[in-house]
C-alpha cells in the first residue's frame, strides 16, 4: 500500500525528475505539470500523467497557484511536492493545499511565512538563541540607505527580504555604487519574488557558507543530517558543495545542529529544511532558513544513505522520522550551469551531444537529454553531478574524473571552472572562503591551449578528408555499413554548420 495514491510535482527540470524517481520507487503515481517550453521535458515524459499549465513564462505556468491546484484536483492528486524555487516557499500554495485537503509536502504556511521574510526570520532566530550577523533586522528604503550602510560599516550586503537562491543580492564596498546596486537588487527581487523589499547587513570577512539539513515530522521530532559546505559561489550562486566541511569541529557541528533544530522547533517546522549559516574564524552566524528541499541535498543523501525525498513523502503521510544513520565518507556536488565559464553569462542553445559519467560513486541528477533546447525562461542550472568517496581526497579525485567524462555540447557550461576549482591548491587545502572563485584561474593552461589548436586543425583536416571521400565515392565498395558522414564532414562539404 502506497502512502499516497498520486503526487503532483509542481516544478520542472532536474528536481521534478528527482521527485518522480522516488515516487516511482515508492509505488506512487505522479502528475507532471508543464509550460509550452517544457512539452518535451523529461519530467513530462517520465511522470505517469502530465498536465499542460500554459505559457513559457513562469507566471503563466509554474507560478500560477490556481492552475497548479486545479490540475491536482482534476487528476485526483492527494499530495503536491513543490521542489525548490517557484512555489516551494509560497505560503499561499501551502494554505490552499490545506484548504483543499491535499497534502503539501513542506512545512505549514506559518513556518514558510516567518522564515520567508528575512527580517522576521532573524527576529525568531534571535529569540531561539541562534547567533546573528550584525545588520538591520528590517527592510530599508533608498532614503536611509547610505546612512545605515555607514553605521554598519562597509562592505555591506543588500539582500531581498523575500529572497533565496542568491537572487537579488549585491555587495557594495563603498558608498559610490550603493544606489545603483540597490536599484538592481530591488528590481531583481521584484522580478523574481514579486517583492522589492531589501535589507542590509555586514559582510563578514573570509566567510564560509555552511548549512545544516534538518528534518521534522508531525509528531514533534526534529533531526539533522550533518552539514554541507557551500562556499564555492559566483554571483552568490553555489557552484560546488561538499560534506563534511573540512574546518568544522565535532563540537561546532553539534552546536550548529542543535541551533538549527531549535529554530525548526520554534516555528513548528515539518518536513525537510535547511538552516544556512556563515562560518568565520571558528564562529557561526544564522543567515536564513530555506523551507524546502535544497538543490544540494544529494550531498547529504550520499553520505547518510538516506533518500530525503522519500523522507519528505513519509512525513507528509504522517509517518515518524527514521533514526539518522552514521555518515560515511565524503561527498561533493558540482552544479552544471549553462553559462560561459569565463563571464558566467547564461549560454543558450540546443544540446546536440550528451555523455554522462558512470562508474563507482557517481550520481547524475539532471533532466538533460539530447535535443533539449536551453531557453532563457528558466534557471541556468541544467543538472548536478554528485560523487562519493572514502575521504575528501578520494571524492575530489573521483569528481575530477567524472567531470572529465561529462560531455555537454550545444551550450557552454560551468564545468571547466568547477574542474579548475577542484584542482586548485586553495580548494584542496580545505582552507577556502566564499570568494574562492575570484581567485580561480579562468583560462586553460598554455599546453592545453596548444593541444586545442592542434585538435581544431585536426578536426578540420578530418572533415576535409571525409568530404573528399564523399566526393570520390558515393558508395564505397566492400563496406557492409552505410557510411555516416557526421557533423565534421558535413560541415566541410556544405560550407556551413548543421546545429
Amino acid at each position: 500500500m502506497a502512502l499516497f495514491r498520486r503526487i503532483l510535482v509542481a516544478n520542472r527540470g532536474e528536481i521534478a525528475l528527482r521527485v518522480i524517481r522516488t515516487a516511482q520507487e515508492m509505488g506512487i503515481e505522479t502528475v507532471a505539470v508543464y509550460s509550452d517550453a517544457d512539452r518535451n521535458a523529461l519530467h513530462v515524459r517520465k511522470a505517469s500523467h502530465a498536465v499542460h499549465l500554459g505559457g513559457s513564462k513562469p507566471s503563466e505556468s509554474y507560478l500560477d497557484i490556481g492552475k497548479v491546484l486545479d490540475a491536482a484536483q482534476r487528476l485526483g492528486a492527494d499530495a503536491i511536492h513543490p521542489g525548490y524555487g517557484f512555489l516551494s516557499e509560497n505560503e499561499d500554495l501551502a494554505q490552499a493545499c490545506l484548504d483543499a485537503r491535499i497534502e503539501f509536502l513542506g512545512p505549514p504556511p506559518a513556518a514558510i511565512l516567518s522564515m520567508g521574510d528575512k527580517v522576521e526570520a532573524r527576529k525568531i532566530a534571535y529569540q531561539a538563541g541562534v547567533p546573528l550577523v550584525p545588520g538591520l533586522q528590517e527592510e530599508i528604503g533608498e532614503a536611509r540607505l547610505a546612512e545605515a550602510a555607514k553605521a554598519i560599516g562597509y562592505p555591506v550586503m543588500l539582500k531581498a527580504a523575500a529572497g533565496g537562491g542568491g537572487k537579488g543580492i549585491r555587495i557594495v564596498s563603498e558608498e559610490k555604487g550603493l544606489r545603483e546596486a540597490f536599484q538592481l537588487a530591488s528590481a531583481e527581487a521584484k522580478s523574481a519574488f514579486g517583492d522589492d523589499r531589501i535589507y542590509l547587513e555586514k559582510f563578514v570577512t573570509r566567510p564560509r557558507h555552511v548549512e545544516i539539513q534538518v528534518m521534522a515530522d508531525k509528531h514533534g521530532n526534529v533531526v539533522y543530517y550533518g552539514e554541507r559546505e557551500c562556499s564555492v559561489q559566483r554571483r552568490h550562486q553555489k557552484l560546488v558543495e561538499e560534506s563534511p566541511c573540512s574546518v568544522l569541529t565535532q563540537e561546532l557541528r553539534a552546536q550548529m545542529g542543535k541551533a538549527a533544530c531549535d529554530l525548526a522547533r520554534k516555528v513548528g517546522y515539518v518536513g525537510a529544511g535547511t538552516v544556512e549559516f556563515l562560518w568565520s574564524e571558528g564562529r557561526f552566524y544564522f543567515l536564513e532558513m530555506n523551507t524546502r528541499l535544497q538543490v544540494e541535498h544529494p550531498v547529504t543523501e550520499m553520505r547518510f544513505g538516506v533518500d530525503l525525498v522519500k523522507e519528505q513523502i513519509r512525513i507528509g503521510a504522517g509517518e515518524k522520522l527514521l533514526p539518522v544513520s552514521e555518515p560515511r565518507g565524503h561527498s561533493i556536488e558540482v552544479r552544471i550551469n549553462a553559462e560561459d565559464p569565463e563571464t558566467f553569462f547564461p549560454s543558450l542553445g540546443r544540446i546536440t551531444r550528451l555523455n554522462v559519467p558512470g562508474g563507482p560513486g557517481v550520481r547524475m541528477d539532471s533532466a538533460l537529454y539530447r535535443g533539449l533546447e536551453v531557453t532563457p525562461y528558466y534557471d541556468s542550472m541544467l543538472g548536478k553531478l554528485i560523487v562519493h568517496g572514502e575521504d575528501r581526497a578520494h571524492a575530489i579525485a573521483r569528481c575530477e574524473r567524472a567531470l572529465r567524462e561529462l560531455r555537454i555540447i550545444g551550450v557552454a557550461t560551468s564545468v571547466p571552472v568547477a574542474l579548475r576549482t577542484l584542482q586548485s591548491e586553495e580548494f584542496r587545502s580545505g582552507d577556502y572562503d566564499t570568494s574562492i572563485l575570484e581567485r580561480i584561474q579562468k583560462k586553460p593552461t598554455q599546453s592545453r591551449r596548444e593541444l586545442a589548436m592542434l585538435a581544431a586543425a585536426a578536426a578540420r583536416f578530418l572533415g576535409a578528408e571525409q568530404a573528399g571521400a564523399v566526393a570520390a565515392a558515393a558508395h564505397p565498395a566492400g563496406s557492409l555499413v552505410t557510411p555516416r558522414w557526421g557533423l565534421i564532414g558535413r560541415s566541410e562539404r556544405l560550407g556551413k554548420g548543421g546545429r
Partner: protein
Amino acid sequence: MKYFTKLDGEERVFEFERRAGKLLARSGDRTYELNLSLVGDGSAFSLLVDGRSYDVAADVQREHVTLQIVGERFVVHCENERERAAQAVAGAKVVGKRELRASMPGIVVDVKVKCGDLFEEGQTLVVLEAMKMQNPLPAEASGKVARVLCKAGEAVAAGAVLLELE
C-alpha cells in the same frame, strides 16, 4: 594542407601529411604523429598524438571550431590556406562600426540611454535579463548614442545590435 589556428591572440600553423601509412602534423620545428578516427555521428573524434589519447568533441562551423577536450571548452579560429587567402582579400573591405551588442540572448529590461546621449566608459547602457539574472551591459569606451535599436521588454538574440554608437 595547411591550417592557421588562432586562440586567445596566439597563432599556430599546422601542416598535415599522410606518409607511409602515418599521419604527420608539423608546426614550426615540431612533428606529431597522429591517429584520427571519427566517432558516432561525427561530432566527436578520437585523437592519438604520439600514442597519447584524447577524446575530442568538436562542432565545426567552417573556421569556428568549438572543442571539448581534457575537461575544457575552446572556441578556436581555424582557417585553411584557401580561406586565409580569401580572407586577406576581403579584409580590406571591413569597416569598423561601433555598436553595443547583446552578450547573450535575453530580455531587455532597461535602456539607460536615448539617442544623442553622451556616456562614459564603464557606464551601464542597457540591462539584460536571462535566466532570472539581471546583467548590466557597460560601455567599453566613452562616446555618444547614435541609434537605439531595442526597447524594454523585447527579447533579443545573442549578438543582436542594441545600440549604434559614435
